[in-house]
């Protein structure tokens, strides 16, 4: 009953005029970011942090979450009109969406994208509302060993599922964890890896890493490639409406996409991109005319676009209930929570019900706003495709500079950010995934803290990590994921020379 009252109270917070305004700014900027290829939601959220110093934690988190799920809507516009996904999660939309646009059905493709995103997003919020409280109740019994094992599972999932090589994913994770060890050790007071640089004694702020690898790194990659991916823009004319037949064909893919998206989104490491790929495969295998896929089948747009939105909301479940993000973007959100002195996890629902339910309920409102932005007002966003990238990318670099300088007014941190930008560029060139590293940077100190606390409780015995059923189950899960990943890569490696 208390929980129900808190949910209802959350609406009174999310419907306050200033929070409605920040929801609007968030989803508007999310759509803009989604439309612009080269800048992802992680970079956008990180760049927005300096704008949030003056805001209440609830308003700031509402706005940042709006960018995150709003970007999933915007990504479809470029996929349909220029065959270039604005976000990686819109890759599958480009296959049939662009073909629909070439046949003069761009309006229908964008309309089903918006409706699918709305239905998928809203369904996932309802599921989040229903499952959040039972999950947090279960997680309340977690102590430091269980938390350590949980973070280990999350990181193993992320590096196993992200990118083409799990070994590179693990390397990326280790680099992130190593970055998190820089600075003063909170338990012993010893300074580690600062190499005599005073600015490093406090550790490396996660914003520097995120802005560096995502914003600066993405811009450097785009500038180096001289924006090669930009193609011809298909003109959007006519109404953004679906025929009765198109609605009928889309209904089941949207329903399946909502379910697939939410379930895949909850899993750490899987996320919106994998959800859209799974949804596309399911729709193709269920289709009466699979030969139409790739030539403009509306099911190929409806399913993946619904799934990627449902997944982005689904990935908020582990973040809010357990305090463990499953992707680079949700890791940035976790960093923002921590910056405001709020630790996501089971206690969040007890200590800050206003923040968490204000945030969750703002997503209902945000999805309605996104539907309005992406149907009658879509023509405004289409204009963004005409902004010269040679002007846009330097502006992103200035925004990154402001964001980093505003933290401590230190020039050193700007150079550090550039160094991470170069690292991000090199990682992209070498096909090393960035999300595991960012996740590890954000979770690293919590993970070490849990490890040290557990070891202090046990008097230095590692057996504490196998003392409860929860931690044993998590250990088994971790080993299973690792064995499966090694098996999968070795099979793929053996097959490769034959192909």
């Amino acid at each position, binding site marked *: 009953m208390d929980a129900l009252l808190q949910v209802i109270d959350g609406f009174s917070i999310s419907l306050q005029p200033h929070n409605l305004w920040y929801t609007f700014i968030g989803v508007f900027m999310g759509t803009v970011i989604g439309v612009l290829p080269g800048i992802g939601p992680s970079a956008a959220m990180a760049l927005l942090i300096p*704008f949030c110093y003056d805001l209440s934690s609830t308003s700031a988190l509402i706005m940042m979450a709006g960018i995150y799920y709003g970007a999933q809507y915007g990504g479809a516009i470029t996929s349909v009109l220029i065959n270039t996904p604005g976000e990686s999660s819109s890759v599958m939309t480009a296959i049939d969406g662009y073909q629909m646009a070439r046949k003069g059905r761009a309006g229908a493709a964008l309309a089903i994208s918006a409706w699918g995103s709305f239905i998928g997003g809203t369904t996932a919020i309802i599921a989040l509302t229903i499952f959040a409280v039972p999950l947090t109740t279960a997680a309340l019994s977690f102590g430091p060993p269980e938390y350590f094992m949980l973070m280990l599972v999350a990181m193993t999932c992320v590096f196993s599922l992200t990118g083409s090589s799990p*070994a590179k994913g693990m390397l990326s994770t280790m680099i992130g964890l190593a970055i998190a060890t820089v600075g003063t050790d909170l338990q012993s007071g010893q300074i580690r890896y600062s190499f005599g640089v005073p600015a490093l004694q406090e550790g490396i702020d996660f914003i520097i890493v995120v802005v560096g690898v995502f914003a600066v790194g993405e811009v450097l990659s785009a500038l180096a490639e001289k924006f090669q991916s930009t193609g011809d823009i298909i003109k959007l004319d006519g109404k953004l409406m679906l025929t009765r037949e198109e609605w009928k064909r889309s209904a089941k893919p949207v329903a399946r996409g909502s379910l697939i998206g939410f379930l895949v989104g909850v899993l750490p490491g899987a996320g919106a991109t994998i959800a859209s790929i799974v949804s596309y495969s399911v729709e193709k295998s269920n289709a009466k005319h699979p030969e139409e896929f790739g030539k403009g089948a509306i099911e190929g747009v409806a399913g993946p676009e619904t799934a990627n939105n449902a997944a982005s909301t689904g990935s908020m479940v582990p973040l809010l209930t357990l305090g463990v993000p499953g992707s680079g973007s949700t890791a940035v959100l976790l960093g923002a929570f921590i910056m405001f002195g709020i630790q996501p996890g089971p206690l969040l629902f007890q200590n800050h019900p206003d923040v968490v339910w204000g945030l969750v309920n703002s997503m209902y409102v945000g999805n309605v706003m996104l539907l309005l932005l992406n149907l009658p007002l879509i023509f405004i966003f289409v204009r963004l495709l005409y902004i010269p990238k040679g002007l846009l990318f330097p502006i992103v670099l200035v925004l990154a500079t402001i964001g980093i300088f505003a933290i401590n007014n230190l*020039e050193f941190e700007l150079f550090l950010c*550039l160094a991470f930008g170069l690292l991000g560029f090199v990682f992209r060139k070498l096909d090393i995934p960035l999300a595991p590293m960012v996740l590890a940077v954000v979770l690293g100190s919590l993970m070490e803290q849990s490890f040290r606390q557990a070891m202090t409780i046990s008097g230095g015995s590692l057996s504490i990590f196998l003392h409860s059923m929860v931690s044993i189950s998590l250990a088994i899960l971790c080993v299973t994921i690792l064995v499966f990943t090694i098996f999968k890569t070795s099979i793929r490696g053996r097959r490769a020379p034959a192909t």
Partner: protein
Amino acid sequence: MLQDRSIAASALAFSCLYVYATLSIPVLDNIDPVGPRVYPLILGAGFAVSSLWLFMETVFAGSQQSGQNDNRQDGRTKSEWMTVISVSAWMVAYFMALVPLGFLLSSSLFLLGLSSYFNRNRFAANAITSVLFSIGMYALFTRVLQVPLPGGLLGF
């Protein structure tokens, strides 16, 4: 293939350096049974494992990809690196000028320089955007959001 093996070797070298730096952290007698070294040493082992795993991946994948990089690819990579190094150098100059010149002047010059190269033949549009964007951001941060930015030569 060769590239992945180089990454594996670099990761192994880094793990050695990281462990060496970890062992130089002084350990004091206190109630903490683990101390500041143990967790980083586990990470050092993790680096070594990921390096070995990556090496094994290259062995499993065989050598079918070796020698595929043609001259055109090498030329493109070189050109990309030249662009990245040039942009980075321009950013270093911007960072160094930020405090002495101030945000307005340094940002306007930085934007003008980059956009003149990447958005060619539109000097007037680039110049207007560079100056107006810098003024807009300076006003937003210093006047509305109360976040200080360097005033520099212009002194406001």
